[in-house]
């Protein structure tokens, strides 16, 4: 049987790992390679690196290969992929097909696209044709507006006006092989996932759905699987700040009869 995946997400900002809260408060907590060592030792199911750098030009039509940050990002990716013996997703702020090509050529197994899928869905489709839908993870960030979940792009700054289920179906149609659902309101708050949104997306598409944003303790993982219908659960802070938390999360789920991978002795 396919195991339920537990996925640490690392947020990169100007080349460093940060903790993020509600997409607006950030604190540096480490460097990309230092963090990787810990996750390698933990034999994590897979790892997601998402660049959430704020400064700089956000015009998607820029030539990314000539700006400083993406160059640094490629160097980070190459270094990470050399010691990452787990499946690696790399992305955030991806603005072109060429950028997708270069990440996949330089050690990423999947790319994480977000705003690009809203502005240029055809570019995502071309990437899926070229590399397969399985190489495309699409991010879907939700903010509640007057209680109604709405998908936002551009790091939470621009509303698409679309409900998560509608947006998710468009992502699937464009060629996304997987959808990472994040909650802007719950990001870094440890109050649990937005289960209603996770469920709506999981019901709307037939590609795997990963719940992200808000996990405070291991019971939130259970809720995302049971109530949210998620194929995988992701978290940032929960793994950053708690000692040996990844293995403890796996033990917690395994002890409660969840079918997780458990490659640990004893």
């Amino acid at each position, binding site marked *: 049987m*396919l195991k339920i995946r537990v996925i640490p997400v690392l947020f990169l900002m100007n080349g460093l790992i940060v903790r993020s809260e509600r997409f607006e408060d950030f604190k540096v907590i480490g460097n990309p390679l230092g963090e990787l060592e810990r996750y390698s030792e933990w034999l994590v199911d897979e790892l997601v690196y998402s660049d959430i750098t704020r400064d700089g030009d956000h015009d998607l039509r820029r030539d990314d290969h000539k700006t400083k940050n993406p160059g640094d990002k490629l160097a980070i990716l*190459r270094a990470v992929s050399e010691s990452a*013996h787990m499946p690696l997703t790399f992305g955030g702020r991806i603005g072109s097909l060429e950028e997708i090509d270069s990440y*996949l050529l330089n*050690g990423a197994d999947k790319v994480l696209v977000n705003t690009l899928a809203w502005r240029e869905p055809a570019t995502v489709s071309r990437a899926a044709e070229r590399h397969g839908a399985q190489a495309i993870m699409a991010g879907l960030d939700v903010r509640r507006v007057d209680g109604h979940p709405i998908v936002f792009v551009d790091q939470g700054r621009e509303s698409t006006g679309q409900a998560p289920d509608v947006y998710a179906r468009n992502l699937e149609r464009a060629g996304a092989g997987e959808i990472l659902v994040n909650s802007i309101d719950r990001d870094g708050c440890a109050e649990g996932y937005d289960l209603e949104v996770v469920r709506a997306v999981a019901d709307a598409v037939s590609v795997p759905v990963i719940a992200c944003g808000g996990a405070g303790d291991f019971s939130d993982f259970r809720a995302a699987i049971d109530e949210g219908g998620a194929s995988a659960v992701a978290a940032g802070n929960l793994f950053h700040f708690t000692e040996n938390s990844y293995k403890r999360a796996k033990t917690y789920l395994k002890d409660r009869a969840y079918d997780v991978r458990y490659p640990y002795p004893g």
Partner: protein
Amino acid sequence: MLGPARIRVAGTADLEVIVIVGYGRGNIRSVENALERVGCRFRTAGNPREIASADKLVLPGVGAFGECMDLLRAKGFEAAILDHVARGKPLLGICVGMQMLAETGHEFGTHRGLGLVRGKVVQIPRKDNSLRLPQVGWNELRPRKDCPLLRDLPGDRTAYFVHSYHLAADEAADISADVEYGGPVTAAVSVPPVYGMQFHPEKSQEVGLRILSNFAAL
């Protein structure tokens, strides 16, 4: 400390040369990193002449069957690979590299494969919409016959899959392992000296390193 153990093959200096077929598709860097870790001698070939002296070949691949096959042919690798196998030398296909071993692929039209394993590549059968495609993640390998590459797998024998299509082999005896995903899905084939893995050994931590190390030791 809990960490991925390095699996080294004894006397690696004497080992033969593994050549990765670099035709422009597949996560070559990951395969190189994993072979490096296993401690074998390898290089990546960018043209068919460079594989003539190979003792073993690794054929990686991601993306669509037809596009990978077209690229492989356009770069002139097809004949060189078939020649390598005809001389009895081992070949390991990974992911779409395994699918290309089949006679035909049925993703975005019908495409001719290398024809080294009898069967065709079709979408994972789906009885209803509750089965999510692609299959993404770790699944437990179920051995179907003895295969030298799948011997002595450590831990829980899970490997990392990411695919929507699989190789439906004509002969059940050619399947060396499968996984359960809405029914049996082909995980590995073995028609010596040809081997194929639908999952990614280069990304499957200890289990994958053991498989690559077994391949190096063939």
